[in-house]
Structure formats: structure tokens, C-alpha cells
């Protein structure tokens, strides 16, 4: 198990970077998120005497999605609470993982808190996530999403879990850097968090779910209670699944998946498989991880054991 760098000295962590990767998000939504971040940072700083907290926005849109006045409004929400606010226009769609990596490279804070742009953190969330992270061997802590709580299982006493969702995850930079962050090449949108989590665990770190750290994640609920996926999300998810099977050495699951898809009945999955096949033929595939068997947690076609399932 890795040992955190400065925990022994009692002065860890001294700094936190908060990262939001944007893609065509609207200003009002981001101002609301900034207000939520401000309250969460204020509460976190009441417990942790942090020297520095920075908020970094990275924009993957084709054109900057936030106007100057909108950026100013966001700065105003965060003024007096954080030490620095920056906006970076990437001029390229790096994907959520790639954008997060790029933003992380802009600083050297001890802790990186990644928030999706469509989230809203409860005021105690940052403090609770940081407190759970402030322990030897813990690489990442995740909040509990509402209204669609993730059904992934966790240890009811310690919160230890198989993987952490990327929409609201707090990471030790040391751990994040040690595995080179997200793999944006194979996982530009989905599966990047599962992959990062399992590589962290392969490196000896542990991950924790913090159910008291509440995060609103704005996702629609279907009229029959199903969790909705767009075709683009479904395609990305299917492709991510196939790369995960490759990286974590499960050719049996890969084969079963490829054989299960009926091209006529599920054209989205068929499209993902076509992309997968094309790249495999071109040799563009992830290497299998040596520790795959120790960390990969495929259960009934899902990542990790689930406490319950949503329809859809």
C-alpha cells in the first residue's frame, strides 16, 4: 500500500484544486455550480487550514461557452473563498478525462477535486471527501449522487469500493500522477473513471465512497423510472466496455459481448463494435494490465457488485 507523501508530517493537504471540464454548458448553470463550490470550500476551510484553493475551468467546446460577463459572475461567486479562478479554452474536445488531465497539469496542488459541470455539491461535501482522503493509502473519494444514487456497492463501515465515479471525485495528486491520470485515448467519455480506479487499485491504493458527501448530478429519470441514455452515451459506453475487457484481460467477456449483439436490434452497439474492430485491426488497443485479475471487478456484465439495479 502506498504511503501518502506528507501525511506523516500532519500538514497534508495544504492545497486543493477544483476542476470543471466544460462542453457547451450554459452560464447560469455554471454560476449555480460556482455558488455551490464556494459554500463547500468555505466549509472545508473551516476544518482544514488550506494554504491555497484554486478553481480551474477547462473548456472543450468548439467556441468558448462562457462569455466574459458569465466568467466574471462565476469569479464573483467564488471571490473571497478561493485563491484563484482560471478559465482555459482548449480549442479542442479533449473529452472529460483528457480535459481533467490537462487541468491537473496546470497546477501542483496536493488534492484535485473533479466535478462534472452538471453537478451541484452539498455544502459539507468537500470537507467530508477531504477528511476521507486524509488517510494513508486512500487515493480517491467519491460523493453520493442524487437524485440517481449510484447502485455500486461499498463497504458499509469504511466506504471502500471497487471504483469511483468521475463526476465527483477527489484525488490525491500523488496517486493521480503516479498512474498518469485518465486514459483519454481509449476512454474519452465513459469508462475512464473505472479504468483510472482499477489502475489506482493495481498500484496499491484504495478508493472510498463517502455517502454523506451529497452531490446533485443532473440526469433525467424516465417516466417509468428508467435511467435514460442517449445513443451517443450508449455507444461510448459500449466501446469503453470493450476496451476495459482488453485492458483487464477478459477475452471471454469480450467474446460474449461481441456475440450477444444483434446488429439489427441494437445498431448503436453494432456501431461501437465496428469502431472497436477497426481499431483492433489497426493495432490501436490497450495493453493488458499485469495486475488485472487482482483489481478488475466484472460482475454480471457490470463493473463491481451492485446493491440494486435501475431499469433502462
Amino acid at each position: 500500500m502506498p504511503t501518502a507523501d506528507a501525511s506523516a508530517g500532519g500538514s497534508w493537504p495544504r492545497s486543493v484544486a477544483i476542476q470543471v471540464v466544460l462542453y457547451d454548458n450554459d452560464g447560469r448553470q455554471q454560476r449555480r455550480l460556482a455558488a455551490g463550490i464556494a459554500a463547500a470550500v468555505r466549509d472545508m476551510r473551516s476544518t482544514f487550514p488550506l494554504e491555497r484553493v484554486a478553481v480551474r475551468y477547462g473548456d472543450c467546446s468548439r467556441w468558448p461557452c462562457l462569455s466574459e460577463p458569465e466568467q466574471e459572475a462565476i469569479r464573483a461567486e467564488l471571490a473571497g473563498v478561493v485563491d484563484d479562478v482560471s478559465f482555459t479554452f482548449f480549442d479542442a474536445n479533449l473529452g472529460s478525462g483528457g480535459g481533467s488531465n490537462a487541468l491537473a497539469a496546470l497546477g501542483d496542488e496536493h488534492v484535485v477535486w473533479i466535478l462534472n459541470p452538471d453537478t451541484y455539491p452539498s455544502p459539507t461535501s468537500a470537507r467530508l471527501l477531504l477528511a476521507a482522503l486524509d488517510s494513508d493509502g486512500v487515493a480517491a473519494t467519491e460523493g453520493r449522487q442524487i437524485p440517481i444514487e449510484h447502485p455500486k456497492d461499498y463497504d458499509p463501515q469504511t466506504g471502500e469500493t471497487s471504483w469511483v465515479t468521475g463526476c465527483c471525485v477527489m484525488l490525491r495528486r500523488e496517486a493521480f500522477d503516479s498512474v498518469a491520470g485518465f486514459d483519454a485515448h481509449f476512454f474519452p467519455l465513459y469508462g475512464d473513471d473505472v479504468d483510472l480506479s482499477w489502475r489506482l487499485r493495481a498500484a496499491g491504493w484504495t478508493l472510498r465512497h463517502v455517502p454523506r458527501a451529497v452531490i446533485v448530478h443532473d440526469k433525467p429519470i424516465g417516466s417509468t423510472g428508467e435511467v435514460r441514455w442517449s445513443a451517443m452515451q450508449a455507444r461510448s459506453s459500449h466501446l469503453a466496455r470493450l476496451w476495459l475487457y482488453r485492458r483487464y484481460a477478459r477475452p471471454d467477456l469480450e467474446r460474449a459481448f461481441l456475440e450477444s449483439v444483434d446488429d439489427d436490434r441494437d445498431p448503436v452497439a453494432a456501431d461501437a463494435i465496428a469502431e472497436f474492430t477497426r481499431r483492433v485491426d489497426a493495432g490501436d488497443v490497450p495493453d493488458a494490465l499485469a495486475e488485472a485479475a487482482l483489481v478488475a471487478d466484472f460482475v454480471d456484465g457490470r463493473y463491481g457488485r451492485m446493491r440494486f439495479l435501475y431499469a433502462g
Partner: protein
Amino acid sequence: MPDDGPGGDSERSLTYDFAYSWQSTYGRVARLIASQVETGTVLDLGAGVGTLGHAVGRYGFGYLAVDADDDNVAAMRSRGREAVRVDLLADDAVARVLEVVEAAETTVVAVTMLDVIEHLPDPDRTMRLLRDVVDRLAVRQPVAPMVLLSVPNVAHYDLGAKLLLGRWDVTPTGLLDATHVTLFTEERLDALMSSNGFAETCRDDVIIEATEQRAPGDFPVFGSTMLATHLRALRDGADPNGRIYQFVRSYRGTSDGRRGEAEARRVETDAVPDAGSRPFLSVVVRTQGTRSTLLDTLTSLAAQHDRDIEVLLMVHSDDPDTLARVDGEVARFEDGFSRRVAVRQVRGGGRSRPLNEALVSARGRYFAILDDDDIVTPDWVATFRQIVERSPGRLVRAGCVVQGIVEREPDEAIDFSVDSGFSADHPAHFDTLDAVRSNRSPSCSYAVPLDAARALGFTFDESLRVCEDWKFELQIALTCGAADAERVTSVYRRWRSGGRASLDEGAAVWIADHEAVIDGLDETPTLLPAGSLRRIHELYRYVEQLETELGRRRPDDGPYADTSR
């Protein structure tokens, strides 16, 4: 001037020479005075022919009459009354009245103005005069006199019901006396008096069910017709004044005196709140302050796209520490949200009490309810607003899903967790007949028009142990109608262990209160939306078909008859 209703005595020569009886206005005024002071003189401004003199004389009070009409003054003097002519609209009216009192060398214990102010185009001016008279008398004698008024009530059911039929029948005397130039409801009278520094001390209003307005003819809004019964129930729900023919009330001057012209004008003109200054939605969150799920509820509210809301966080607990803890939890949120939250302590009562207290203080156009284990999606408020823009004034409802929730062990990372996916246990759309059958809308799934609820006097029934929200929802829906959106915007979390009343209360309580709700609403006729007759028709045909299939009816039998009635 009302004539105390049908049966009141009048003489054509003196329009308002009404006889005294113990239940007349005069008898009531005399009793109100006698209940508060033992001796002294009653100064009667606008005395008419001095009938009050007879009434107060029976209790041993002196009587000093002032009237602007020479004939009335002459008539009173001819009856041996002490009467003086003073025009209350004249500039020197106050001085003249005081001269009359001084000349009489008496202590005035009450100043009356019976059936006067409705005849005046500017009652506020007259009330200022009255206040001036009272204040000046107060410094000349041992005690300040009380003030008594009688004023006809134009919010009587009979007037409103007839107006629905296009009738506004002015009569020689009565509620719509031809000489009335200013019309009063209780609210307007209260505003007039309070703005002039008078506080009500006693009342003995004249109650008349059937007024002179019911003649001639059998109007369908009166009597035992279904329409009358329905309208009557609506009117009685709105406020208790539908049967008051005449307000008969006594007042004392308050020490702060007149509150000033500006406030008086404000009271006159601002009876309807400015819609622009009101939040769209008042959200009442009901909590006992002990459940950590409250953080979920509050965070889901803070994340709303449409934040045109106020949150009334009703902490139903006597414990001051609980209140402080909840207050602290709210204070952690960003100012943009926390300043929209009012934390209120609620003591006593059952599940309805916090809702009723919130109903009184809410300012929103619409009113919605969350329990402290409900959560809403970020478009919850925005969806309600979209429905309201499409169907203003109706109950608005959006989709709601159910999720199981369980308590966790004390040593675990949290004291609760959900344990199921979502189930769509409730219909996606609101259906009135379906809603009458049983509660099909969790309280987190709808919002009601607040002004309608207040105007109709709908509150949460505190006699119910459960189902209070269902009854309230039905009352609104059966009066205002409902509009909906299929989009799911709320999650009703159903406890599988511990939790809210759904499991705490026994099935017998639920059944009993369910039946009580139906029986209570069934006491008066019910409005149903267009298309309901066809639905009922088809339901009867369906019953006939089932009865036939069960062999309890032959196909050629007559129409099915509901024999349960």
C-alpha cells in the same frame, strides 16, 4: 342602511326609523356597551331618529344624539331625546360635537356611528374625525370612550350568489340600500379602523341566512339546490362572514393613534399583493429535525435551475437544540440559497400543523410540499412553472418515482441508504376519478395555487392522522382542476424500515382516514372535469359487463343500479 333584514320596521316619512328589538342592531350595540362599562352617556353620531336611545336607556345609559337632518333632530326632540343638529361633513364638525358634549355636562363612555359610514363617499375622513373626537374627549374626562359601528356586509352570500346570475338589485333599504355609496367587507372595515388607530374589542354581528335579496323568485343559487349547496360550501370555506348581514363591533383607540395617510392608502389599495414581488413557489419542507436525509432534500432544492422560490423549513420539534442544528445546516449553504430559506419552529399538533402554519405565511404564487426524505430533480420548479404557464390557476403535477430506503446500522458510514431502483408506482398523468379512488400523487409531485387555497379556505385537516395531503390535493383539484407533465421531477423515498408515517401508522388508521376524507368531501356536491360523465357512463357499463361475466346479471337485464346507496 340595512333594516335588520326582513321584518324590520320602517316608516316612509323617516326612512331609517327602525324599531328596537333585543336582536336588532340597536339591541346588540346596547349590550356591547353594557358588557364593557356600567354607566355614562352614549354619544350617537348620525343618530337618525334616535332608536338607539331607547336601547341604551334600558341599560341605564344617558343618550346624546347628533344628526345632520333637521327632520330627524325634530323627531327625536319630539320624543324627548336630547338631540343636536351637526353636519359631520362640515369643517367644524369636531368642535361642534365637543360643544354638544360640553353643554350636556356628561361623561361620554361610548361614541356610536351606526349605519353611517356606508353612506359617506370618504369614510376615512369621517373616521379621522371620529378619532379626533375620541382623543379630545379622552383628555377631558376620566376614561376614553369606546367606539361602536354597525356596517352592512356586501360579502354576504346572497349578494355574491345573485351577482353570479347577473343580478345586482338595489333596494330601498337592506344590504344594497340605494343610498349606500361605500361598500364594506370585513377586510375593508378592519383596514379602515386599524389605519385610524382603532382596535376591535368586541363584536355581536347580525347573522341572517336569507336576506331581502332572495326576493323575488326562486333563484337556483338559493335554497337546497345542488348549485346553492356547492356555492354555499365554497363561500363558507372562504371565510366565516357569508352569513353576516351587518358587522356590529366595538373598538378602542390604540396608543399609537393614526398610522398616517400613506399607510391608510396602502391598506386601501394593496389588498391584492403585487404579483411581481412574490416568489413563484413556496416550498414547505416538513421535518422533525432528526433525519439526515434532510441534507438531500435541501441540496436538491439548492440545485434548482429555477430559484424563484422561498423555502419554509418547518421544524416540528419543541427542542431548541434541534432548531439550532437545522438552522446551522441551512447556514452552510451559499447565500443565494440560504437567504431563501426560513427556518420556523412548529410546536404541537400532528402532521398537518407545520403545513397549515406554512400555508399562513407562504408568499409564493404556488405552494408545494416536501418531506425531509423527498428529493427533487433540478428541473422540479421549472417544470411546475411550465405547466402553470400553460394552465394557470390549476393544481400542477409532474411525474414522480418511488425508491426504497432503509436505515443502516449505527456503525456504518451513513444512517440510511436507498436499496432499489425507481418504480413508477403512480400514474404519469393526473386523473380526477383515479385521484378520488385513492391517493395517486405523492405530495412532492404537485403544487397548488396559493391564492386559490386561501380564497377557498382550504387547509390541511388536522383531525386526520394521515391522508391530510390527499384531502388538500383533492379539494384543490376538484375546484381548480389539474394540469400535468409526464416528466419525472421528484423521488418519493419509501422506507422499508423506520421512516415516515407510511410504516409507522397502522393499516387501520389509513383505512379510517381514507374513508373520512371521502365522506368529508362528499358532504357537498362535487365538480368534475369535462369528460367525466362519459367516464362514469363507461364505468357503469364496465360493471354491467363484469356482473354479467360473473353470472350475477343477464345480458338483457336493465341498467346496473348501484344498490349501496
